[in-house]
C-alpha cells in the first residue's frame, strides 16, 4: 500500500533483550481510522510506543508521509505530526488542567484553538484551574485527547481510551472520535473493546504475540467474529 500516510513495514522491537514485536506491518491512509485489536500483552501498546520512538530498540521501516521516523530523536517525532494519547492518560499532577492542555508544543497549523476545545469539552473549561489529576478518570481521558488536538498533529495514536470508564463516558469518547474523524484526522486506535471500536473504525488489525495475524475492513467484522472471539478470548 504505497499511498499510506503512516507506513510501517517489518517492524521488530525489543524491551532490553526481550524481542517483543516480530515483523509488524501496518498501513494507514490519510483520514482513516484504524483499530488495533488484541488481548493484553499482544503488543498493541508496544506498537504505539515503537512508532512514537519511546521504545528505542527497533528495526524495520516507519514512515510518515515518506519521512523516516526511525532515525529521529524522540522529540522530533511529535514535530513530524504525530499526536500521542498514552495508556493511563499521562496527566501531570504538578500541572493544572489548563497547563496540561497547553503543554504539548504546536507542531503544525490547523490545530483546534483553546476556545474550540473548551466548547467540545465544557467540563475541562469549568475545571481548568484544578490540578490535572484531580479530574475524574473520564475527564482525564478527555484532557489527554484534547491535549493533542491543539497541536495541529494530523495523525493521532490513541491507547485504550475507554479502559476502566463507565459506559456513558465511553459513549461520549466515541462521539468525540467521530467528530475528529469528520475533521479529517487520521487515527490509530488501540482497543480491547471492539464493540466500541466498530463505531469509529474503518479497518481492523488483529495482533497476537507481537505479530499481526489478520486485517480486514470494518464491514467484515461480523464475518470474523469467531476468530476475534478466539484471539481476544472474550
Amino acid at each position, binding site marked *: 500500500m504505497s499511498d499510506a500516510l503512516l507506513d510501517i513495514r517489518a517492524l521488530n522491537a525489543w524491551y532490553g533483550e526481550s524481542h517483543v514485536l516480530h515483523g509488524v506491518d501496518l498501513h494507514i491512509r490519510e483520514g482513516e481510522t484504524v483499530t488495533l485489536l488484541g488481548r493484553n500483552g499482544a503488543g498493541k501498546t508496544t506498537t504505539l510506543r515503537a512508532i*512514537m*520512538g*519511546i521504545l528505542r530498540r527497533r528495526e524495520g521501516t516507519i514512515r510518515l508521509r515518506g519521512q523516516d521516523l526511525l532515525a529521529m*530523536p*524522540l*522529540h*522530533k*517525532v*511529535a*514535530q513530524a505530526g504525530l499526536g*500521542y494519547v*498514552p495508556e493511563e492518560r*499521562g496527566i*501531570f*499532577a*504538578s*500541572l493544572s488542567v489548563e*497547563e496540561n492542555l*497547553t*503543554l*504539548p*508544543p504546536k*507542531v503544525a497549523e490547523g490545530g483546534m484553538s483553546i476556545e474550540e476545545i473548551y466548547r467540545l469539552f465544557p467540563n475541562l473549561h469549568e475545571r481548568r484551574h484544578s490540578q490535572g489529576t484531580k479530574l475524574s478518570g473520564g475527564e482525564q481521558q478527555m484532557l489527554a485527547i484534547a*491535549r493533542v488536538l491543539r*497541536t495541529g498533529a494530523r495523525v493521532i495514536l490513541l491507547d485504550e481510551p475507554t479502559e476502566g470508564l463507565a459506559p456513558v463516558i465511553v459513549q461520549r469518547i466515541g462521539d468525540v472520535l467521530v467528530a475528529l474523524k469528520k475533521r479529517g484526522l487520521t487515527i490509530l486506535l488501540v482497543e480491547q473493546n471492539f464493540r466500541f471500536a466498530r463505531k469509529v473504525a474503518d479497518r481492523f488489525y488483529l495482533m497476537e504475540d507481537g505479530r499481526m495475524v489478520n486485517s480486514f475492513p470494518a464491514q467484515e467484522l461480523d464475518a470474523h467474529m469467531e476468530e476475534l472471539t478466539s484471539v481476544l478470548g472474550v
Partner: protein
Amino acid sequence: MSTIFGIPAPALYGQILIGLINGSFYALLSLGLAVIFGLLRVINFAHGAQYMLGAFAAYGLLNYAGIGYWPSLVLAPLIVGAVAIIIERTMLSRLYGLDPLYGLLLTFGLALIFEGVFRYWFGTSGKPYAPPPQLTGAFNLGFMFLPIYRGWVVVASLVICLGTWLLIEKTRLGAYLRAATENATLVQAFGVNVPRLLTLTYGLGAALAALAGVLAAPIYQVSPLMGTNLIIIVFAVVVVGGMGSILGAIVTGYVLGILEGLTKVFYPEASSIVIFVVMALVLLVRPAGLFGREA
C-alpha cells in the same frame, strides 16, 4: 538594656540577623540543588564548588579585569553556568539512566578537582572582597545596627528565590520543567526537546550557586573551601525540605538559618549540630521531608 528571655535584645536580634543571612545562602543553594535533583535525578555534589567558583569569578573579574561587583552579579553566574553546561553536555549526560550514584560520584570528583586547583593557586586563606561603595555603612534600626550589605543580601536572596519560584510555577518553561520531572519521556514524546531542558536546568542551578557565591564574597572571604563548609548543611536543608521540592528548599533554608542563629543565643554548644538534629527528626517522622510528596 531590654532583655528577652534573659537575653540582651541586641544580641538576640544580632543572631537572628546572622541566621537570616546564613538562611539566605542555604535557601539559594538548596533551591538550585532541588531544581537539579527534581529534573535530572542528580545529587549535585559540585554545588558547593560552583558557589565557590562564583565567588572566585567575581574576585578574578575585579582583580584581573577591573570589573566590579554589579557587573559580576550577572557575569559570574553566566561564566559558571557556561562551565556547568559544558560539564553536563560532555560528562553528566552520559550518566542519565544509570544508578544516581554515578552522577553523585562524578560531581563529587569534579568538586574535589575544582577545590584542589583553586587551593593550588590561591592557598586556603581567604581573599578579601570589598562590598560595593553603595552598600557600605549601616542603618540604625533603633533597636540595632543593620549593615547595609547584609540587608541587601537578605532582600536580594528573597527576590531571587521568589523569581525562581515564579519561573517554575507560572511560566511555560516552568510547566515543561515540572512535567518533565514527573515523566520526561512523555514530555519529550510531545515534542519538547528534553535533553536541552536538562542542560539548561543544570546550567541554571549552577548559575544560582554562583550568584550566591558573588553575594557571599563580601561577607565571608573568598576561599577555595567556602563551598565545602557549606554544602553539607545545604544537603541537610534539602533533605528536611523534601528532595526536589522547590518551595520546601526555600522555606526550609530560611527557617533553619534562623533556628541555627537562635540556638547560638540560647544554647551555643548545639548551634553547629542543630540542623542535623532537625534532619534526623524529620527523617524519622516524615522521610519524604516537610514539603516532599510521600512516595
